[in-house]
């Protein structure tokens, strides 16, 4: 009984801790998600957490032009609605920027030029001019309105249906898939050699791989592009696959070797005794057992290539047949940036595929096929 009690209390504690951690981790992203459904003005004037509830906002609305006033008895009148039928309760209004909330709905304000202005709670306004007014510049009405939560799909529409986005998606996949698979293959063999084959200078090679992890990509661009140009690859898919393979390889070798070195030596030894070649051992024992490590590296490499813009800009051409999604999205933003609503929507558009990859590979992040006998790295 007591055992069970402790256990369930512990389970509760675990659930709560994980819940708290998850909350902490997704709140920032959630803010972006909410923002992706808001328009730019709303994003830069109020916090995303306020978007979920009705809020009181001050707004400036321009009434119809004086030219359009219609005669009404002796006076000339313009009528309309400040919210254009979108609802929202007016709680105060004003007619100058100095006193934007001087009047309650229904009260009559008199402009210094003589016209009388009133705004009703439902947003209907009425401007009465004593004489026929002229001019095309409408009167500004300042209102404080109870605005219902307002969301828009426009940001997503703009990103998803942008010209060339479908083609760009295809291009991105063309870059990403080989750039994920090739380094895994190359690295897996190298990792096996570094983990289980006797050779001189092994430790130095391992250290070298760690050292190469730290090379900032920026320094590699010019010499490599020069090289590609000299050997005739130029800018294109082949070049970017090779580049991503090179840049991803140190991490791949490092992760895989460390996983493989933790695999049980007895199995490998007994296979050797049975006369299996290294190639056979690698294919039949190491690869299946290393699936969790292969899958996790595949996830990271996929993510990195998927979200990359820099390497693509350098090693791929810019024409339509080679433009990647990240590049198209940057094109949607203005030259001076700051279109946060588009950034937010595109972040969620581009996260969809990596998350799907993560989900589909997540089930491979489990015990190796020979569960139980693996002792972990």
């Amino acid at each position, binding site marked *: 009984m007591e055992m069970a009690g402790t256990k369930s209390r512990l389970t509760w504690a675990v659930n709560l801790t994980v819940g708290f951690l998850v909350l902490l981790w997704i709140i920032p992203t959630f803010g972006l998600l909410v923002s992706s459904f808001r328009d730019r003005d709303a994003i830069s004037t109020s916090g995303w957490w306020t978007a979920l509830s009705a809020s009181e906002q001050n707004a400036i609305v321009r009434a119809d032009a004086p030219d359009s006033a219609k005669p009404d008895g002796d006076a000339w009148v313009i009528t309309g609605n400040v919210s254009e039928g979108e609802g929202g309760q007016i709680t105060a209004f004003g007619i100058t920027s100095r006193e934007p909330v001087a009047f309650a709905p229904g009260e009559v304000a008199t402009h210094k030029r003589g016209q009388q202005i009133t705004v009703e709670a439902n947003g209907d306004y009425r401007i009465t001019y004593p004489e026929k007014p002229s001019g095309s510049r409408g009167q500004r009405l300042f209102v404080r309105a109870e605005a219902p939560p307002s969301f828009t799909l426009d940001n997503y529409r703009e990103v998803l249906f942008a010209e060339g986005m479908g083609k760009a998606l295809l291009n991105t996949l063309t870059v990403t898939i080989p750039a994920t698979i090739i380094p895994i293959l190359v690295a897996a063999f190298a990792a096996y050699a570094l983990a289980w084959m006797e050779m001189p200078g092994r*430790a130095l090679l391992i250290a070298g791989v760690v050292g190469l992890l730290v090379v900032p990509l920026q320094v590699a661009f010019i010499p490599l592009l020069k090289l590609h140009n000299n050997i005739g690859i130029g800018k294109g898919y082949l070049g970017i696959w090779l580049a991503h393979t090179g840049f991803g390889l140190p991490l791949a070798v490092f992760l895989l070797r460390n996983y493989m070195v933790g695999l049980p030596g007895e199995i490998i030894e007994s296979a050797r005794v049975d006369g299996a070649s290294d190639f056979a051992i690698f294919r039949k024992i190491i690869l299946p057992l290393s699936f969790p490590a292969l899958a996790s590296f595949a996830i990271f490499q996929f993510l990195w290539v998927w979200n990359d813009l820099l390497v693509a800009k350098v090693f791929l051409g810019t024409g339509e047949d080679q433009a990647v999604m990240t590049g198209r999205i940057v094109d949607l933003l203005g030259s001076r940036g700051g279109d946060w609503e588009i950034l937010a929507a595109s972040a969620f558009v581009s996260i969809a595929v990596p998350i799907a990859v993560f989900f589909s590979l997540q089930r491979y992040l489990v015990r190796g096929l020979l569960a139980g006998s693996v*002792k*972990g790295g």
Partner: protein
Amino acid sequence: MNQLLFAVSTIVVGVFGCVAYFYFSNILLDRVFPAKGPNAGTNINKANAIRPWLFLLPALLVLGLYLVYPVFSTFVLSLQDTRGSFIGGENYTWLAGDGKFRESLGNNLLWLVIVPAASTFFGLVAAGLTDRIKWGSVAQSLIFMPMAISFVGASVIWKFIYDYRGENQGEQIGLLNAIVEGLGGTAYAWITMPFWNNIFLMIILIWIQTGFAMVILSAALKGISEETIEAAYLDGASPLQIFFKIKIPQIWGTIAVVWTTITVTVLKVFDIVFAMTNGQWGTQVLANLMYDWMFRGSPDFGRGSAIVMVIMLLVTPVMIWNISNAHKENR
């Protein structure tokens, strides 16, 4: 459609090419040094000496070409001025005297201490706990999400956290300041706060890297054999004891891997600082300083390259640590 065909066929050719290389090169090796006949003994020895290099060759070629060669040319560049003439160690002496460089070095060391530790810790906690609950894989995906979000997305996300609006500039759109004001405090321009702004930037990287640590550690935790755990459990060990006394020692190697990888990421950290502060208000780091000199306005590859060499030098202790780990494994 053509392109899809092209992509698919290159994938097939590439993958099969790789596999074929390994397969046939091995067969060839066995033919050249057959493990039978009069010289069987020496042949086996010879083949065993060569085989690792067959396995390593493609990786070494790619690494050599795509990373070692650029590092070498960077070193050469670091000894040159903007016009490409040799100036010896002048760029390095300039570095030693540069205030921004010293500031960056100090900040980088701070990053190196805090970020790998915090990310690994949170990753371990997340991996250890999500393993035990029903909605574990959902929780993992959510914690992993920051990793998957594009960098531009992440920078907007944190703008909505750290943003500051002064008095009369309207309501706060940064969550942190909204909370502070909600609690009755006064808003603050967080990213200009001396020293602490570094921490605020680090939080972003920790937030991203925890997902990485979690995935790797979770795979390692799942690799621990159930029998050991079962046995300990029957001996009456509490779950906490099992975690700290049995699981942690077994995945120690993986923790080292995660720590190393995040350390290296920290040395290269550039995007976050670039987008949030561009190194102002005392937040400069080496990689951003390097970028400034290499690509800003009038590029000075010499100075930029000298900074890169310093970054590479900083990783040496981690390399040495990994060599000694590798020696231990050789048993």
